[in-house]
């Protein structure tokens, strides 16, 4: 039994020599050995002994084999690296770097630039209003405003490209 999982920026290669029963399992993650005894309390609630240490965990499965795991107040999004991620939202600005898109459904309340403007990294482009907060979307790089695809009072959603910036190469963090 072998899994390739992705949690945040980390990739976990999970391998088990005796996938037999979950009550008593030996597995390795990126080479590190773990002895796991698992006691499922429900579909979403688990009690585990991992290398002798007791852990309580909660899990919720999403649409694409990804699972949201909660352990001691911390939430982990665990993705199966083998499954195509067409529908799973990646966090942050990993769309094409010059495409400015809203993080959540919002309303455009101010457009601060015009097509053809030269902008600097961090410069405000569009101000959105959502959940009573104002958020400013900024230019991820230096460049020129190639196109503005939105207008004042437009209702926008993640995936809508509001502004296109034509710029220098982005150095990915």
């Amino acid at each position, binding site marked *: *039994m072998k*899994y390739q*999982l992705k*949690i*945040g920026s*980390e990739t*976990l290669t*999970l391998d*088990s020599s005796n*996938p037999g029963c*979950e009550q008593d399992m030996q*597995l390795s993650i*990126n080479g*590190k050995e*773990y002895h*796991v005894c*698992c006691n*499922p309390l429900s*579909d*979403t609630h*688990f009690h*585990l002994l*991992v290398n002798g240490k007791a*852990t309580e*965990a*909660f*899990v*919720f*499965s999403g*649409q*694409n*084999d990804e*699972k*949201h*795991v*909660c*352990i*001691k*107040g*911390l*939430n*982990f999004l*665990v993705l*199966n690296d083998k*499954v195509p991620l067409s529908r799973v939202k990646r*966090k*942050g600005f990993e769309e094409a770097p010059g495409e400015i898109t809203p*993080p*959540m*459904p919002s309303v455009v*309340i*101010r457009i601060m630039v015009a097509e053809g403007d030269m902008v600097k990294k961090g410069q405000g482009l569009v*101000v959105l*209003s*959502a*959940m*009573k*907060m*104002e*958020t400013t979307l900024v230019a991820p790089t230096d460049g020129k405003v190639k196109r503005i695809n939105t207008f004042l009072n437009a209702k926008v959603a993640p995936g809508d490209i509001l502004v296109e910036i034509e710029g220098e190469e982005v150095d990915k963090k």
Partner: protein
Amino acid sequence: MFKKVLVANRGEIAVRIMRTCREMGIHTVAVHSDVDSRALHVLEADESVLLGEADPIDSYLNITRIISAAEATGADAIHPGYGFLAENPDFAEQCEASGRTFIGPPVRVIRDLGDKTLARRTMESAGVSVIPGTVCPTNDPAKLLREADNIGYPVLVKPVAGGGGKGMRVVSSPEEMQEACLSAGSEAEKAFGNGALYLEKYLKNPRHIEFQILADNHGNVVHLFERECSIQRRHQKIIEETPSPVMTAQLRSAMGNAALSAARVSGYANAGTVEFLLDESGNFYFLEVNTRLQVEHPITEMTTGIDIVRKQIEIASGEPLKIIQDDILQRGHAIECRIYAEDPENNFFPSAGKIALLREPSGPGIRNDSGIYAGVEIPVEYDPILSKLIVTAETRKYTLARMIRALESYVILGIKTIIPFLIDLFKSPQFLEGNICTNFIDHHFKDWGQNMNDADLAGIVYVMEEKTRPNKLSPGKSQTDWPTPWETLGHWKV
């Protein structure tokens, strides 16, 4: 005493108010928008009235519809909660005009104290020291620029009709004034219907200390001690505690008396909060009076044993306050943190969606004022506060340990919350020392990311969940789909 109270609010505070009403034998009416039809506050109430569509203008901010709901249900009093119409004098006035009691201060007091510059002038006349600032509201950036020169940079641009941290901008130099006024003015216009601004001197590392006051309609005023609200983000409070780690008996006495003076000079009645800023030299300055119940009122309730909502209802119905200042004592320590539906790793962008899984903390000294339940859909149209976690113990150190334990056992899956961020905040050595100021998060938690030490554990849980699920469903299907006959067929033999 009232027979039926309409709660003109939603979420955790509406639930909390209704609970006290229930304990007092008072019938409750919930009002809601269409996206809140299955919200917890609607489920909690004895009856509910649909106001309109999700936009607050059509629902929770709609005075006409709320008063109509009160008339239709025969409610004899209205509790406004916090936010929304809680400090709207027109609402209070129309409520009273319709023959119902507004559970809060008199209309005139709300109006006068709601004008922040008038409030400052009133306090100055009563000998309460105020922060250097302007006394005349304006929208003219040129005027504000001149005033800023008088006060000295940095200054804080604030909305005259404001509250809750909205519409505030720090201006460190004249060049920033124009944009700050535009931005603050529009946010204020949207949040309070009034975009007028004023200026205050921006104090460097102030501590935000407020006093809870209670006043009846017969001239009795008391304070219920202080709360410190020094952990803020974007000028919104996240963590509050009582007593304040820097308070001395002397300072408490001086500030308490200032709070009582503020209450008396303004003719206050019902519950309210007098806010002060404490600078690094131990000088305190009047900031404003919040003429409503505050989000963080539970920490005062935990340490004084007084149900502030009950007192609000009693005062509003004409009963005299039966407590005197010397009777009011504080025991132990209490801390509250607000559980916001925001992603702390993505600039705290609000996170809407369905709560898939919820397990709330419990145990000694734990109070969780929740507005959610597993399966509820969190709408995008409102403040992202899901619940408040309040913890109390004998000492500050014990309270911190209890808060960390409670947060580590708090499970909310389906949307992002700030719980992981809060855990690290409370574990930080700076917080333990009580060395806090309103810029705490900017100073110590600027580029925070959740620690990934337990990533391996999460991977293990992933695998365990897969293995122990009775029917392995094909990718793309959700857990709630019915299994197909092929999956349930079981053994068969030709």
